[in-house]
């Protein structure tokens, strides 16, 4: 794909990403940061593609390198995504509980 096209996409995404968050209540800073952290594990797409495509490599050596380093990348990115969303969910659930407990009292 043409580099110019990729850079334009990056610039667009950056612009939109910058505008999307407006006034975040400070209560949500940590969960939002955590959720964003989980989203940054999106690099799993790259890792998956690399591992998958390396299988078809011509040299045996490349297949092994791709499987070891790429595999490590997939594991790392999956930990990031799953752990990140899991933790964020737990944090947000905690807010829910607090509210429900506070209301009756």
């Amino acid at each position, binding site marked *: 794909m043409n580099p110019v096209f990729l850079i334009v996409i990056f610039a667009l995404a950056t612009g939109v990403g910058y505008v999307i968050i407006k006034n975040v209540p400070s209560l949500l800073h940590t969960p939002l940061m955590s959720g964003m952290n989980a*989203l940054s594990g999106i690099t799993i*797409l790259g890792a998956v593609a690399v591992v998958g495509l390396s299988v078809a490599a011509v040299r045996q050596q490349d297949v092994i390198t791709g499987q070891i380093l790429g595999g490590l990348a997939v594991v790392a990115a999956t930990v990031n995504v*799953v752990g990140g969303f899991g933790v964020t969910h737990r944090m947000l659930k905690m807010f829910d509980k607090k509210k429900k407990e506070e209301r009756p009292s």
Partner: protein
Amino acid sequence: MTPTLYYVVCAVLSVTVLLGISMMSRVKTAVRGNIISAASVLAGIVVTLLYNRIASVGSIYVYMLVGVVIGSAFAVRVKMIQMPQLVALLNGVGGLASALVGILTLLGVGQWVSDFPVFSNVTAVLAIVVGVITLVGSLVAAGKLHKLLSQRPVIWKNHAVVLNFSLIVLTVSVVYSAFAGNMFGLPADVALILLISIAFSTLFGFAFSIRVGGADMPITISLLNSLSGVAGAIAGMAISDILLVSVGGIVGASGLFLTQIMCRSMNRSLMDILTGKTSVSGKKVVQPQPVM
């Protein structure tokens, strides 16, 4: 899957990610926003598998399963009070993944042959640099929060010199990667570029985050978080993955904006934290207290 359909799906998924983030910035919709973001990532994985026609490669699922087990163990087991360091740790792991994708791209393993090798090489090295800085910086941040390292800002004698020097070396190695493997002989050797960029980004990440005090850590983590989004986007450029580029860009930018919001609410200036000014003035505030 045809390219046109792929582009449309990528655009849709980018929008759902945006929706997820914007929903997460309001208390009422935060839980749903989180689930939407998670679903978008999952859909992105499926799309990548289909588009590259690699859904039949068994090892991918094994690796992902390992990751799911480790990740969910972290998410379920960890105590609420340990959350900040866990987020830092997870963030670092994400940076590691981007760096690894960059390394493999530079080695020419596992991707379609690029029509633009120079662009792909330069972005690969850039992904390694940003990814490793994220990894090391996050690990130091996690270590500080977990009290494995001293919470107080550590300032070396030549701190600024070390930072500037490694930044210059990194810039040179990124520029050099444009000539990787075909000109200048030894200086443009792929292995050498790899070694130098990994070594100096480790040094930079360490020097950068060791200087930040414990109280400023959340802001540093938020900044590193934004950086790991950028690392992902750059890795996406290296392998021409548009979904990775767009979501990485979104996370990078909104992460940076969140960092600024956090700075404002904590009454700190981002530049001061970056240049280590806050930690220095923080030290001065601490000094008058006799107990310390």
